């Protein structure tokens, strides 16, 4: 379970998130909508624990443990994982190095090969990570690393943006495996929080709850399909005045 309580976050001197509350129960996937610059990425980065994002107030509980001031890598080892929208190129560090890190003690030739195949990246094993990758390749590589990492909580920042139709099906398939969609609900433990701009991702994952974020606040919480329909019909301006 992920519990976010009264979270207020600043980047530099600017307060970006204000009093954010959210609960994701074990086995649930939630989606986060919101216009550009509303603070969605900031929320994900804060949950994951990137040091640039300073928690001024509130706390983050992960399976009951207060992780608010835990370093990034410790959160990763507790079972949090994130896909990057624009991951850095790390010269000389190969895809093999990354998958090996993600698989951790499960790293062996067979498992590495299996991961690469699942993401259609067999030929990328010795490539320098993200160097000269296309948009679709970056998405697939990010999801493949998550698949190898097997996090309990998966944080995804616009996984479908800039992906063509051929890739989106593969990405949907990877997502389902990461989030354990094929696993019966009562046994499902994987949790997800997905930022989506277009809502396309709703066709591929079972999202339980949706949120709308505006100017660093969560202004709406409810059925994700219903929220998406409202946004499509009336835009985010409606959310600003709507108080269901």
């Amino acid at each position, binding site marked *: 379970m992920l519990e976010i309580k009264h979270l207020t976050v600043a980047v530099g001197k600017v307060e970006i998130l204000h009093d954010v509350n959210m609960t994701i129960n074990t086995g649930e996937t939630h989606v986060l909508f919101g216009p550009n610059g509303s603070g969605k990425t900031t929320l994900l980065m804060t949950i*994951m624990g*990137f*040091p640039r994002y300073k928690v001024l107030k509130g706390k983050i509980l992960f399976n009951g443990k207060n992780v608010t001031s835990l*370093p*990034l*890598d410790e959160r*990763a*080892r507790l079972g949090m*994982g*994130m896909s*990057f929208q624009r*991951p*850095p190129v*790390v*010269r*000389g*560090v*190969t895809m093999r*190095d*990354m998958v090996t*890190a*993600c698989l*951790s003690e499960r790293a062996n030739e067979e498992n590495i090969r299996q991961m690469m195949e699942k993401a259609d990246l067999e030929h990328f094993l010795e490539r*320098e990570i993200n160097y000269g990758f296309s948009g679709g390749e970056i998405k697939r590589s990010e999801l493949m*690393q998550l698949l190898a*990492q097997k996090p309990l909580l998966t944080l995804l920042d616009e996984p479908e943006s800039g992906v063509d139709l051929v890739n989106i099906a593969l990405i949907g398939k990877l997502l389902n495996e990461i989030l354990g969609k094929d696993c019966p609900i009562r046994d499902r433990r994987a949790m997800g929080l997905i930022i989506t701009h277009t809502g396309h991702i709703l066709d591929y994952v079972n999202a339980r709850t949706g949120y709308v974020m505006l100017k660093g606040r969560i202004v709406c919480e409810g059925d994700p399909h219903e929220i998406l329909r409202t946004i499509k019909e009336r835009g985010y301006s409606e959310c600003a005045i709507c108080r269901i």
Partner: protein
Amino acid sequence: MQDINLDSYASADKELPYLDDLSTLSPEDKARMLEVGIVLDSENQRSGTFLQMDNTPVHTCATQKGVEVMTIRQGLEKYAWLSDYLWKAVCKDSDKYTAHVEAKQGNGYFIRALPGVKTEYPVQSCLYMTKGESVQDVHNIVIAEEGSELHIITGCASSVEKEGGAHLGVSEFYIKKGARVTFTMIHRWDPGVVVRPRTGVIVEEDGLFLSNYVLLKPVRSLQMYPAAWCVGKNATARFNSILIATPGSEMDVGSKVFLNAEGARTEIISRAITTGGNITARGYIEGNAPEVKGHLECRGLILDGGGIIYAVPELRGTVAGIDLSHEAAVGKIAEEEVEYLMARGLNRTEATATIVRGFLRVDIEGLPPVLGAEIERAVQASEQDVM
């Protein structure tokens, strides 16, 4: 770069006995030699061996037909023509170090591949400095005859008991038409040793010279600027170097290539890491003929410790129709990259080590796997010094 007073060193003129069986060397010496890629206990992955201790060659052998491994003096006795190659690729009066080697008549290896002969395994040569404070004067010649292929691994090292001393090494390479030479040199010195290699390479038509240089352990002072002249059409020279400067180490290292014939090519790649020492990383490419192409890449990484990296890439073009370029970057490890790896569960130290290992990974085209493995091993062994 600090001046070296060669008169302050003792002369190491004492002749050492010839060693038939190198496995009788002390375990410490053998371990040092192994660190620089010299395998003495089983030579089955080598097509020849040369070992010089201080100023005496103590062992030479060649195990492949068509490959010659001997001392320069033996070579001069055997072949009158060899004197024509002496001091042709390196000028004897370039500086006081070459002059010293000439005055002392420095001995060293003469390695030659006969026309069309291709070595399966590398020839290994080791220049070893035993204890004491003395000067080692070395003069080497490598000739790859037309159409031959020769791989050499050279390990230069000082013994565990070494306090100081100077290594002066003149090396001349002659790559004939269509021949290919890979020359992999691993250095392993001690904090008191000063090193002045002087290297010249002449590459003829369609010839290839590929040099890999690895220096990972402390050295008091190292200065070298090997030069290659691509004199034949489509001649190629490539230099890769990997340098790690720990506190107290001073290095001024570069490679120089003159593209003097149509279609000649070069690539100079260097990776420098400082954990407190100072590195000047140079590169110079001169294009003197049409349709030549050269690229210089120099990347430096400054880790904690207050070291300095000074990158000096230089290009000079004297005719139209050439293509020369360079890129140089000096900096620290990007925090964004460390965080990316940490988000995958590596701790900060592991993430940094992975990035450093990646930085030092230079893909070397045309290098036999056994030599690639030696470089990889040497780099890995030094990781603990960096972290």
